Each structure stands twice: as C-alpha cells, then as structure tokens.
C-alpha cells in the first residue's frame, strides 16, 4: 500500500468571473518531495499555489493537507510557509523582526531560533539590519528564513528566484536544494524557468492553460514528454509537421520516417526530436538523411547547427554538435553531412487542433 500523500488536490477549479484559471486539477504531493509547477506565464501556477495556501480559495474541489480536509479553512488554519516573488519583507522591521514575526517564543528562545534560521540561510549575524540595506539575494533568504521559522509542514515558493540576476540565481538554487535536503520539508516551487525546474525538482508538474499536462521526474519530462505542448515547452526541440503514412511510418514532405506512431493513417502529426539526438557520428541506415549545414552557432560546449535537408523543403532541422565532433570532422557552414534520426528518440504527437 502506497503511503498517504502529504497534499492531495482533487478536482480543483478556479474561475474569475467568466474566466477559468484552473480546470479540474488533481494532484498528489508526496511527503518530503520537492515539486515544481512549471509552465508559461499565465497558465495558472500562482493561482494553484494560492489555492493550496487558502489565499484565493478554489471555486470547486478539495484540498487535503496531511490527511486533513482544509478546503474551506482560512490560510491561518493551514500549515505552510510561503515566499513570494516580491519577498514581501516588512521594510520597517529589522531582519530579526521579520524572521521572528510568526514565532511565539520567549525572548531568549526567540533570539536563538532566529539566529539559527539566519545561519541556516547563510546570513548569520544580520538580524539588526533592515531589509532595505540588503541585496536582492539576501532579502530572498530572509524571506525564506521567515517562512521556515514556525517549522511548517509545507513550504510554498512562488518564483522565488525570478527577480535575481543570473549568478545569484544559480547560487540560491543550490542553497534552496540543500536546505530542502537538510530539513526534508515538502516543498512546492512555482517557476516558468524550465532549467530551474529540471535542476531542482524531484518531480515536475507541467501546466498549460489551467490544466496539468504532465507530472513526472525531470528525466521523464525531458525524455518522454507526454504532449506536444510539453515537448515544445521543455528544452529545445525539432517540431516537424507530417502525416501518418501507415502504422509506424510518417511522411514529412518528401521523406518517409520510421517511428512509433499509433495514430491512424492519414492523421496530421508533429514529429519531435531533440537537437542533441540527431545522430551524426556513424549515422544508422534507418531514417538516414543527407543534410547540408546552413549555419552554425557557437554555444560554448557545443554548436547549434541549422541543417537543410532537400526532401524537407523549407523546413530546417536543428542539431547540437559537440565541440569535439565539430573539431574531429572539421565541420562548418556549407558542409554536406549524412545524419540519422534515431527511431526510438522520435516522438509523434497529433498536430494541434487535430
């Protein structure tokens, strides 16, 4: 028997006037896991987080926290800490005052607890400062310490890193991950940054237009996207329009590809392949194409090449070529290059609107 989920959402629907922001969303969150809500801006991530927090109650559906139905409880009767994108630190209170805000302890115990929390987020001894005197990254960590102070069972983070510059963001990613590992607190983080989700989460919930498209480990989401949307949204992807010729074969322009397509013959589909999965070294004979390198873009550890393939017409194929490969084969714009599209890496989705 699988253990009871720490948080269970059942049929959550949220409407604003005539607009449906969430459509019957159901989700189980395991105790102690780090979950990311990932999706484009406006897809309902924040709305779902606020439903869990009780800040904007759902129109329909049920929220169970640690086996308790909290669907209709106000935020203060639920058990969670939250960090907002803006941090929402109280500017007139010192860092100590902010972190101690939710504590109900005696003076000395409070002081000790605040110092412990500040040390935990890497800001020991800054209790006397005011938020306005700290950098963005430091404010972020104070907000984290404040949310963790009452030792909540659930930590909610709404785009906690999006207001920071790239370097600080990388550092804080690791710090939040470490903190999660140390405390083992069930954590839900909202982000629109797929890299953030892929590197931080135990599981990712990909959302689109108020519904969940896929729930899975980063590896699942990346390698086995469950929908055309997920395939397109997460990572770089070749999206090639085609038609199912017969079971297991798809026709792309003047090209027939072998792939695992279970759609009926004649159906319009999109064939998806990651640029790094285009096979260049020792291309197989299955799905082999003759390509010409049109442009090459240097991206550090690899080059991103645009390949022209005659039977595909105007459609270009993107391939990531490792720096080694480029050196070994002396590749450059204008070179002819035989490539193959590995059958097991091709993913076929029915075309949008079909």
């Amino acid at each position, binding site marked *: 028997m699988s253990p009871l989920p720490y948080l269970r959402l059942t049929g959550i629907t949220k409407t604003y006037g005539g607009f449906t922001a969430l459509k019957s969303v159901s989700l189980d969150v395991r105790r102690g896991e780090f979950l990311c809500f990932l999706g484009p801006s406006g897809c309902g991530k924040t709305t779902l987080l606020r439903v869990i927090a009780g800040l904007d109650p759902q129109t329909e559906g049920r929220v169970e926290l640690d086996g308790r139905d909290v669907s209709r409880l106000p935020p203060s*009767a639920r058990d969670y800490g939250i960090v907002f994108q*803006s941090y929402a630190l109280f500017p007139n209170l010192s860092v100590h005052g902010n972190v101690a805000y939710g504590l109900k302890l005696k003076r000395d115990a409070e002081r000790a607890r605040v110092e412990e929390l500040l040390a935990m987020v890497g800001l020991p001894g800054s209790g006397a400062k005011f938020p306005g005197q700290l950098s963005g990254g430091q404010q972020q960590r104070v907000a984290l310490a404040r949310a963790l102070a009452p030792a909540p069972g659930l930590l909610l983070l709404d785009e906690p890193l999006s207001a920071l510059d790239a370097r600080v963001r990388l550092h804080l990613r690791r710090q939040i991950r470490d903190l999660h590992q140390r405390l083992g607190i069930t954590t839900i983080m909202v982000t629109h940054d797929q890299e953030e989700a892929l590197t931080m989460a135990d599981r990712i919930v990909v959302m689109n237009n108020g519904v969940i498209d896929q729930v899975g480990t980063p590896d699942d989401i990346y390698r086995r996207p469950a929908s055309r949307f997920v395939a397109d949204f997460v990572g770089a992807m070749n999206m090639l329009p085609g038609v199912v010729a017969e079971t297991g074969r798809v026709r792309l322009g003047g090209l027939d590809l072998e792939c695992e397509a279970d759609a009926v013959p004649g159906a319009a589909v999109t064939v998806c392949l990651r640029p790094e999965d285009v096979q260049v070294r020792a291309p197989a004979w299955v799905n082999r194409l003759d390509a010409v390198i049109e442009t090459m873009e240097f991206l550090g550890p690899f080059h991103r090449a645009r390949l022209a393939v005659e039977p595909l017409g105007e459609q270009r194929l993107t391939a990531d070529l490792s720096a080694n490969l480029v050196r070994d084969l002396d590749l450059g714009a204008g070179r002819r290059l035989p490539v193959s599209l590995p059958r097991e890496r091709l993913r076929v989705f029915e075309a949008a609107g079909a």
Partner: protein
Amino acid sequence: MTTAALPGGRPVRWGEAGMLAAGLVSLTLLLVVFVVLPLGAILVRSLYDRNDAFVGLANFAAFLQTPALTVSVWNSVAVSALTTTIVVPLAFAYAFAITRTAMPGKGLFKALAQIPILAPSLLPAIALVYLFGNKGVLRDLMMGHSIYGPIGIVIGEVFYTFPHAVMILTVALSTADARLYEAAEALGAGRLRRFLTITLPGARYGLISAVFVVFTLVITDFGVPKVIGGSFNVLATDVYKQVVGQQNFGMGAVVGMVLLVPAVLAFVADWIGQKRQMALLSARSVPYAPRRRPAGDGLALLFCALVAGLLLGILGMAGFASLATFWPYDLTPTLANYDFAQFDSAGWSSYWNSLRLSVWTAVVGTAVVFVGAWLIERSPAARPLAAVARMAAIVPLAVPGMVLGLAYIFFFNAPWNPLGWLYHGMAILVLSTVVHFYTVSHLTAVTALKQLDREFEAVSASLKVPVWTTFLRVTVPLCLPAILDIAIYFFVNAMTTVSAVVFLYAPATKPASVAVLNMDDAGEVAGAAAMAMMIVYTSAGVRALHAVLSWVLQRRTQAWRAR
C-alpha cells in the same frame, strides 16, 4: 464535496473574516447614512412646500417662474465662467513654471500658491473690502465701479480657487515623458510646436479637471458672494436666504438640487480624466528634467513672484487691517480687534469651538478614512463588499458643502429620524466635515496603501499572525506620512469651512468661520478680519508643525527607508 465536518476536529477560524466583513459593512452603512440618505432627504424635501404639504414639482415650477431666482442662476454661471477663464490659464502658467522650467525657488512658490487654502473664502472678500471698498486704500483704481458685486466676487474667487487649480495642473504637468520631447526635438520640432503637440495634449485631462473643479468651487461657494456680493444675487446666497432667512425649506432644497448638477458633472469629468491620465504614463517613461534657459526662467520667476505677491498681498491686507485701530483713519497697531466679545456675544468661544471641531475631525476622520481604506483595499475581507464600499467612499466628492449642510438639516432634523439627537451638537459638525472632505482623504490613503507590497496580509496569515497585528505593526508605521497628511488636511479644512456648518451650528457650537460671517454681517469688519486671521494663524501653525513632524519622522525612519 467540501464538507464542514473536518477530520481532526480543529475549529474553523472564521472570527477574523467575520470581523473584517463587519467592518466593511459598518463603513458602507456609515457612508450611506451620512451621504446617501441625506441626499435622498433633500430630493424628497424639494417636493414639499413650507407647510409640509406634498406639492410635486411645484417648487421647481415656482423656481423657474421666480425672476429673482432665475437671474441668480445666470449670475452664478457668469461669475463662475469668468473666474474659470481667469484662473485656469493663470494656474497653468504658474504650474508650468513650477514643473517645466529651471527657475529658482520652485519649492517656495509651490508652497506660496497654497496660501489661500489656509483661509476661509470669506477672507479674500474681506481683504477686498479693505482694498477697494468705500473706505478702501485703492478705491480709485476701481474707476467709479463698485467692488460690491460681480467684480469683487470674481477677484475673491480667483484667490480662493487658485491653489486648487495649481495643484491639479502641477500633477498633470509633472507626469511628462522626457523621451517624447527628445524624439520631437530630434525630428526638428520647435519649442512652440513641442508645447502644442506634447505639453498641452499631455495636460489635457488636468486642464479639463481644473475647469470643472474651479467652476464647481465658485458656483457652490458661499463665503465670497456673501461678504462682497452686495445686491448681486447668486445661487449659493439664495439657498442661505431661502433657508436661514425665510425658512422656505422646499425652495432651498430646489436650489440645492440645482447646485448639485455642476458638482456631479465635475465629478464625472474628473473621474474619466483621472483614468485617462494614468494611462498616459507608462511604467517605462523617463521623467522630464527641465533645462536652464535664462530668459524663459527669468520670465517664469517674474510671473510667479507677481502672482505669489498678489496672494500674499491679499492675505497681508486682511492681517494688516485686523491690527489697525480704526481703518483707514487711525492705523496705529492694536490687538483690540481680537477682543471678539465686543463684536459678537460668542467672543473667543467660537474660536475654541473651531479648534475642537478641527481636532475631532482630524482624529475621527483620519481613523475612519484610513481603517476604511485599508478594509477596502487590503484586508482579505469579502471582495464584493469591498467593491460596494469603494464606490460609496467616492460619492462625497460630488456633494458641495452647501448641499451637504442642507441635506443634513432635512435628514437629521426630521421628527422621524432616530439619529435626531445628533442635531445641534458638535457631533453633527464633526460628521458633516468628515463626510465633506472624505473622498480626497480616502484617495490619499488608497494611494499610500497601494504602494505597499500586495502580500503583507498573506504573509501574515501564513505565519498565523492576526491581520490587525500586521495592520498596527507594519501598515500604519509604513503609511504614517500619508496618515499625517490626511490629519492635516482634515484639520485645516475643518478650520476654514463655512458652507456645510453654516446650516448646522447651534449657538453653543458656533465655529470661527461662522463668527467671521456674523461679524461681517453686523458691519464689524475689523472683528471679522481678526477672526479670519486667527483661522489663518492656526492653519499655518498646524502646517508648520506638520512639516517639522514629517521631517523628524523622515529622519527617524531613515534606516529602513534607505534603498
């Protein structure tokens, strides 16, 4: 589906939400009882004659057929239109100099433009009497015309409405996007062309708003025409005569309804204008920084000095006259005119009444406005309720003081009204003044509250801290500057207002501004000037105190304001 019976048996904490909702309901009820119902009463009263018999629209018909009253309508419109035509261009030039030139002393001129706000509208009229009246020092400048009548009214109203127009236009002109000017200059547009194609259109909503506000202020003002109107009748003085003089409440109500028309129009125009004005400035605009232009700056300085000099001159005239032994024959300085008991049996008590009224208005008004604005804008209380309260908070802006005062007579003096005990006390004066100046204060509070992070209340709830703890520990300290502004606004306006209270005071609660009116009526102009100056000294003193307090506050909170 969702059930009320919860596993674990933890009680549902609805206490907080319930109290917040109750707060919003009380606020809405307060605004309905003290704004909407009295306005209803005025409407109903206009349908009854002086013997309390229902006469339908007969009062309106009588109004239209009374030549004296229809003449007043035209007089009112003419005087208001003329004042508007003079004030708006003057104020525009003044505001332009403050915002768009590099002349020195801009802060000082901005402050000087506010001088008239410190005085009741009776004061400029009294000063004009001293300057151009039958014994006026500059009587010869009138070239045989009398200051008593339209000329005096227009000059007095220009003084009285100038700061309001300057304020509106300063705001409109300070929201300029420098990039528009740079683009125009790069395209070779000359200075005049830039003014006509960028500056004027950018300020158009401010201009429209200023026109409506000034027109409404003049047509509903009672102080200036009362003192210097002579036999030139206007609507505002007619209301007073009908109600206070002839006890003809039905006809008073009709005139009150007529006065409501321009005010409501102004209200709507202002509302539309403000929405558009916001849209003009995007978040990515670059603020305009005026460049030095010796000739233009010099001209601006000269103009502002002239205007500010005239404002100071009028105020100084009243101050000077209040200190003269026997104007204009014996100018030896004396404080005798400040011995009010010799002119008016109420003596100094009306000044103390005004002080009490102002303190109460500031305290009660600020508390209600700020808590109310917080409930509406920030509290996690029921949103539909907040939307209703938000609308109710705007309504007082559309009600001129005279109409409000009249409405209160009809409503609170009605035998069936259980709130009738409020009538004849200080409470009704405080309430009417709070309501009269509610909306501007409310909008100040809303602006301050909107600058706070949206999630303070959510953070507080997640940390299981009651929402009012956060209100007291975070919201109030952060909004203290705005709270002080609101308190001062209430105080100064309570000190100077005449229009509503003139209908509502009782002998024991007569405020200073009404004493000015009474003394002037009785021909004791020196006493009236002295009492008006007492109001000015007090308002100015409180403003100075406010400046000091703001400065101290600024310093004490520097640690966390540093960004």
